[in-house]
C-alpha cells in the first residue's frame, strides 16, 4: 500500500468514527469535541488532495472560531439527559424520514454515471510552482468577484439581523462606559485647594 493511501484511510477511519460519536455521545460537550476532531480529519484529507488553502481555512474557521463559540454555548447548558431524551420517540419518524431522503439523494448522485472516473477524470498533475492559495485568490477576485461580493453581503445582512433580533434596550440600566472612564482627566476628579493651616489660639 502506498504511504498516501495509508494516510487517507487513517484519516478517514478516525473521521468516520468521530462523526459517529458526534451523534452517539451522550454528553453534548463530548459531541462538540468529536465534531472538532471530525473537522480536523476532514482538513487532513483535503490536504492530501493538495487543497491546502481549503484545508487550513476549514481548521481556522470551523475549529478555531465556530466550534469555540459552539463549545462556549454548550458548556453553559444545564445538561439533563432525561429531559434531552424525552422527545426521542416523537422526533424519530421525522428524523428517519429526513435521513432516508438524504441517503436516497446521495445514492442517486454518487451512484449515477456523473461521478464515475470516466465522467470526471483526475486533473492533470500541477506544476511545482503551483500555489493553490494564489490560484484560488486570483479566481475569487477576478472571474467570480460579483458572486463573492454578493455572498459577503448576504453574510453581513445575516450578522446585522442577528444583532437586531437579539438587541434589547432596557431602561434604567447603569452601564459602565470604558471609553469615558479612559478619557477621564485628573482635573475632572481631584481638586487641590490651598488653605491656611488652622491654629488654635
Amino acid at each position, binding site marked *: 500500500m502506498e504511504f498516501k493511501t495509508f494516510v487517507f484511510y487513517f484519516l478517514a477511519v478516525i473521521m468516520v468514527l468521530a462523526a459517529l460519536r458526534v451523534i452517539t455521545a451522550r*454528553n453534548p*460537550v*463530548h459531541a462538540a*469535541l468529536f465534531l*472538532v476532531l471530525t473537522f480536523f480529519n476532514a482538513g487532513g484529507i483535503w490536504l492530501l488532495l493538495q487543497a*491546502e*488553502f481549503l484545508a*487550513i*481555512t476549514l*481548521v*481556522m474557521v470551523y*475549529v*478555531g*472560531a465556530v466550534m*469555540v*463559540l459552539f*463549545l*462556549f454555548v454548550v*458548556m453553559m447548558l444545564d445538561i439533563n439527559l432525561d429531559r434531552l431524551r424525552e422527545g426521542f420517540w416523537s422526533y424519530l419518524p421525522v428524523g428517519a424520514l429526513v435521513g432516508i431522503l438524504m441517503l436516497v439523494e446521495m445514492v442517486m448522485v454518487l451512484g449515477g454515471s456523473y461521478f464515475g472516473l470516466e465522467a470526471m477524470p483526475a486533473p492533470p498533475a500541477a506544476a511545482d510552482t503551483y*500555489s*493553490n*492559495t494564489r490560484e484560488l485568490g486570483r479566481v475569487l477576485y477576478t472571474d467570480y468577484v460579483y458572486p463573492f461580493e454578493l455572498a459577503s453581503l448576504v453574510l453581513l445582512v445575516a450578522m446585522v439581523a442577528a444583532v437586531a433580533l437579539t438587541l434589547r434596550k432596557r431602561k434604567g440600566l447603569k452601564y*459602565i462606559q*470604558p*471609553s469615558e472612564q*479612559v478619557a477621564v482627566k485628573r482635573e475632572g476628579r481631584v481638586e487641590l485647594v490651598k488653605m491656611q493651616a488652622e491654629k488654635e489660639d
Partner: protein
Amino acid sequence: MEAMLQPVADLFGAAWPAVWTLVKIVAIIAPLMICVAYLTLAERKVIGFMQVRIGPNRVGPWGLLQPIADGVKLLFKEIIVPSGANKGLFILGPILAIAPSLAAWAVVPFDDGLVLADVNAGLLFLLAITSMEVYGVIVAGWASNSKYPFLGSMRAAAQMVSYEVSMGFALICVLLISSSLNLTDIVMSQNDGRFADMGLGVLSWNWIPLFPMFVVYVISGIAETNRAPFDVVEGEAEVVAGHMVEYSGMTFALFFLAEYANMILVSILTSILFLGGWLSPVGFLPDGFHWLALKTAFILLLFLWARATFPRFRYDHIMRLGWKVFIPVTLVWLFVVTVWMMSPLSIWS
C-alpha cells in the same frame, strides 16, 4: 550532509524519511524546552532586578539550576483528579494546550533554508494552529467541574477569539507587502529596497512601513498568550488561577510549558514578520541565526518588562481595546497599505 548520512539512511530503509523527520523534530523541541526552562528563570531574575530584588539565587551559581529544580519538583508531585471532574477531558486539557504550541514550530524558519517544513501556506498554517490553542484552556476549565476554572476558561475563550482577529489583520498586511505566505519568503522580501542596498537593512524591514501593525501584533501577542497585563484568565485576585486551579504536578507544568512556548513563538514570529528574521541590521555584518535569537530575546524582554510595569487590565477594558481600538486601527492601516501599494509611491514593486 546527505552523503554523510547515506549509510544511516540505508540502515533504516523505507522508514528513513520518518526517522529523519523525528530527529529534526527533536532537534527543535529539545532546545525549545531548555529555552522555556530558562525563560522562567529569566523572568524571575528580570522582574527581580526591576523591583530591586535579587531573584532566585540559591540553586546553583546565580540560581542557574533553579528551573531544573522546579522541573524535578513538578515531576514528582502527585496529579490529583477532582472526584467531580470529567476524567478523560481533565487529562486531555493540558495535552490540547501544549500540542498546538509545539506543532506551530514546524513552519518556523531559523535561517535561510533551515526549516522543518518549508510549506507554501506557512502563515496560514500558523494562524490555524494558533487558533486551536484556546481548546486546552476551555476543555480544562470545563472538565474541572469547578466555578473558578470555568469562569477563567470562558474569559480565555472570549479574549483569545477577539485578539486573533486583530492579529490576523496584522498578518494580512504583512502578506500583502511580501506577496507570499511562506515565512522564508517573507523574511527575504525584507532584504530589498533602497535602504538595504545602502547597507542599512534595519530601515527596510517591515516594522517601519507597518509600524501600527507591529505595535498591534506585539500587544495582541501578549493578550493571546494570556500574559500580564492581560492575564485576567488566571487573575488570582478574581478567579484564583483560572483554568489551572484544579491542576497539580505535571498537568500544571504542561500548561506552564505551553504558555512559555507560546511566548517564544509569538516573539520569534514578530522577529520574522516585522524585524527581518535572521537578516543583519547593517550591511557589513553577516546574516545568521544569532540575529534572530537576539531579536526574539528582545521581544521576550518586552513581555517581561510589560509584566513588571503595568497593573492588570479590567476585563471590559481588554475587550474594548481588542474590538474598538485594535480592529479599527488594523482595518485603516490595511486600507492605507493597499492604496500605498497601488499608488506610484509604492516601495514594494
